[in-house]
């Protein structure tokens, strides 16, 4: 259980990117009436950015 939790926290930035940043991007775009580029839906665009950013933070240990 403890090992599983530690592994979960290791990938938490990725989970945060998908679970929170992605919908935050999509809902912010909707609030400001912005359309997603490349014919994507807002949530697909948010997921692309959120997952990529979260993966970067997981691998690099920092968000920027």
């Amino acid at each position, binding site marked *: 259980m403890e090992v599983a939790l530690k592994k979960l*926290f290791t990938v938490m*930035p990725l989970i945060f990117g998908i679970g*929170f940043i992605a919908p*935050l991007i999509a809902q912010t775009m909707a609030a400001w009436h912005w359309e997603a580029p490349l014919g994507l839906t807002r949530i697909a665009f948010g997921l692309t950015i959120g997952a990529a950013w979260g993966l970067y*933070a997981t691998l*690099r*240990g920092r968000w920027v």
Partner: protein
Amino acid sequence: MNDIRDLMLGGQTAPDALTREGPAIPLARPDRELDAHARKTLAQMEREIGLKYAAQNVSTWPYVAIALVCFAVFVATFPLAIMGVIPLWLGCAINSVFVAGGYVVSHEAMHSNLGREGTKARFWNELTGWIAAVPLILPFSMLKAMHLLHHQYTNDPIKDPDAIHAAPNVFMAVIKSWLNRQPGPIGTAARWRRHIGELGTPEAKAALKHTMAIQLVVLSFFFAMARSGYAIEVALLWWLPRHIGLSYIHAVLSWAPHQPHNGVGRYDSTAIIRHKLGHWGSLGIDFHLVHHLHPYIPVHACKAAYREMKPILEARGVDCSAH
């Protein structure tokens, strides 16, 4: 009680030495030049003043009341902002204050100032400590463990958890605060795990479990709210206030009174400062030395205790020129 003037001046006449306008005691005089008898007597005098303002001798129930009210308002900002009763920016501002202020209130509980162990008030001490720390998304047990380590090893670059906030100026202190929040090995989380491992006590291990539990619960709340279409509300009512509050805590409450982070002695690990935000704006951090000397004095009583202790501190060679 000995006459402070005899102790400091060796019996020499200096009628204006202790007046506010007078030249006071030479600040360069280090306390190690005092003989053992003088140091012991000064310590006794200092302790007598400390005990006069100790938590059991001053009113501390307002901390409990503030914690309960602020926690209720913090929770209420979510439905109120979602329903449009209050604007999001107002909720963001209020909750930012609660994050920073919550730490200060929780801090009193860390030192058991709201109820000693074995007393009836202990329940309120623990309750206050836990609920005041909720906006920070950190458990009281972890904050207490790290804060007591900070008191034990103040400014030790390896052993003091707060030494991670050392920075050359306040701007860099804010930047450092943000960098320390990164998830990698240089961040606060990794450092706290090391400290917990070194402590190795059941309480420390429990604190680590509490930290994981509260973060999982709060992140689940974040995800659920985002899934329900309230990501912006959660971001502005909790995520952003937490980061604003943490920046304040680190730059104002941790960095300012301890910079330049090189003193490790009882009288030079922190200082009496005049903060640009003022006494209230800095939540009483200007008398932080009094807190480190006597942690059982609640923060609101440190100013009055300092007024009485000032001649003693000056005799010790402490720079009291700020107040």
